[in-house]
């Protein structure tokens, strides 16, 4: 059995045509295994955001193939891609991206609504996950009533609620103060310790240092792929996500 959650083979992303052609990704191949905690770093314009969009199935590759959890995403239609995003990926964004005027618990349970989970079960699972990120008592607060760190924890809860195979974080600490940043990174570490596969895009070296493996992008190429720590095999074996 192939244990790679993410498998990119010669993936290119080309914007524009002819003279104006820009290769945001140029024949990138990478494999990320289950249970790994990978930081993707690079300067702005290096291709790391394009990488994030492709891994997150928000955008398609121009060339090459991308397998997510063994599924060839190039063959999927829009509806199936929406389902993949819903069930396989949990997104955490830099600016939290919670739905305004909507209670934390409803924000967290929203992916389950699109997964057609029953209303009562949705609420139970949302409250459970909110509890696991330490926000049980804030369930009925709206985003505007929460601090940045709390909002990001709600966003992480939302990402986790469908029990995805991949947690995809785009500059998750970019909009936070250092104390909240530490809390969020600690949360990521504990999630990783419990067997989650995490891919984190960042441009900060100290944030990247929390990962097992650091992949550096420059001009659409991977110029460095360094493993800092081994994958915790025991955690992966006992992890919940299937």
């Amino acid at each position, binding site marked *: 059995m192939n244990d790679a959650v993410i498998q990119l083979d010669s993936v290119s992303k080309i914007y524009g045509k002819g003279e104006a052609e820009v290769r945001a990704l140029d024949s990138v191949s990478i494999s990320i295994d289950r249970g790994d905690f990978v930081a993707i770093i690079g300067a702005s314009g290096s291709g790391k955001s394009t990488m994030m969009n492709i891994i997150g199935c*928000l955008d398609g590759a121009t060339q090459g193939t991308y397998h997510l959890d063994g599924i060839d995403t190039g063959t999927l239609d829009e509806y199936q891609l*929406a389902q993949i995003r819903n069930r396989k990926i949990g997104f955490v964004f830099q600016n939290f991206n919670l739905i305004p005027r909507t209670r934390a618990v409803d924000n967290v349970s929203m*992916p389950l609504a699109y997964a057609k989970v029953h209303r009562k079960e949705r609420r139970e699972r949302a409250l459970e996950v909110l509890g696991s990120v330490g926000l049980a008592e804030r369930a009925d607060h709206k985003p505007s009533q929460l601090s940045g760190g709390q909002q990001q924890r709600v966003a992480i809860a939302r990402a986790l609620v469908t029990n995805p195979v991949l947690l995809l974080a785009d500059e998750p600490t970019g909009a936070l103060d250092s104390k909240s940043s530490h809390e969020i990174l600690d949360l990521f570490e504990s999630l990783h310790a419990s067997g989650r596969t995490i891919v984190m895009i960042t441009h900060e070296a100290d944030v990247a240092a929390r990962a097992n493996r650091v992949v550096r992008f420059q001009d659409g190429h991977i110029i460095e792929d360094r493993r800092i720590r081994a994958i915790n095999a025991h955690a992966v074996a006992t992890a919940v996500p299937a």
Partner: protein
Amino acid sequence: MMIAESVRFALTGVMANKMRSILTTLGILIGIASVIILLAVGAGTSNAIKAQIGKLGTNVLTVSRQTTAGGRSAGGGQTVTGPRSRGTNLTLQDMAALTDPVMGPDVAATAPVVTAQNVTGTYQDATHAVATFVGTTPSYFSISNDTLAAGSYFSDGDASNGTAVAVIGNTVAQDLVGNSVTSAVGQTIALNGQNFVVSGVLAQKGSSGLNDPDDIVVIPYSAAQDKFTGYSPSLSSISVQAKSADVMNQAQNEIQMILDARHNVTSANRDYQVRNQAQILTTATTTTATLTILLGAVAGISLLVGGIGVMNIMLVTVTERTREIGIRKAIGASRGSIVSQFLIESLIISLIGGVLGIAAGYIGSAFPLLGTQPEVQWWTVWLSFMVSAAIGLIFGIYPANKAAKLRPIDALRYE
């Protein structure tokens, strides 16, 4: 279940901008209410006219003298010469011929009508200018759907002998003897100086519109000829009652065949005309239908404007919530769920407007407008409901599609 979810999301959207939703709803409300009210006014007017024409008598045809020059000039080359007026007379013999059971099997009853203008009634100090003054036979009353409030009609004998008796309408009685109209029976009133004994007072028909059917004095036809019109062989007109509403046209043909033969004319040079009550009704109905369509069209335009308002607001909403759409797509919303969320949102706005508009239409139609009582038509209520639903769908589909087609990465980047 997903629909219930979309409804919930859509309601959140509607509630997020209460003022905006209320104003948009108001646009639909006004449109629907005006459609219902104006069509109700049209229907009310139409029914009032029909009722009024019905009061003039049931299945009535009126044979009157042709006043145009057509008859004379067309007949000029033949037997009729000069100013001879024989051809323009309608006589009691003509009338009697109409009731021939062989030639006119569909004619039920006839009554002569001799009219006079500018007749004034006087009783003690009170005077009243009579609007309709008719000399006829008792059969006139049943043809005109008249009933008595008090007293009696005059007899056929009175009609031919010219007895000085009169049956007066409610308005005339009120003006002459005051509110207790039945006390007029047995009193002697003067009509243009000639004394008449009131034998009966007609029951009120009720005025609706231009002329008052209760402003009438009916006397024997021979008395009218003797004392008002001067002796003339001609009647003003003949009222004919057909056996039923279904045979109005047959009755008209029979009358024309009988009179054409008697007057020695053809359809080209007829010296009389037959007016069919059904035709009058048709004309009146066509007129009010045109009016109703015009009113409805004006109201429909305001509804269209309301619909454009819904679309406008939905477009603003979609632009405003581009980021939310991006987030929803990123966490797994399909195109279909985005479309249904926004479509349901515009449906909610327009249906609330529609339902409130129907209520407002009912309330507005409770009050008389332009002299008629509007009558709300059931079909307009259903139509309005359907139209407001259709507005929600039609004017919501473009913004909803626009939302669904947004690419998640573009939508997420939107500030």
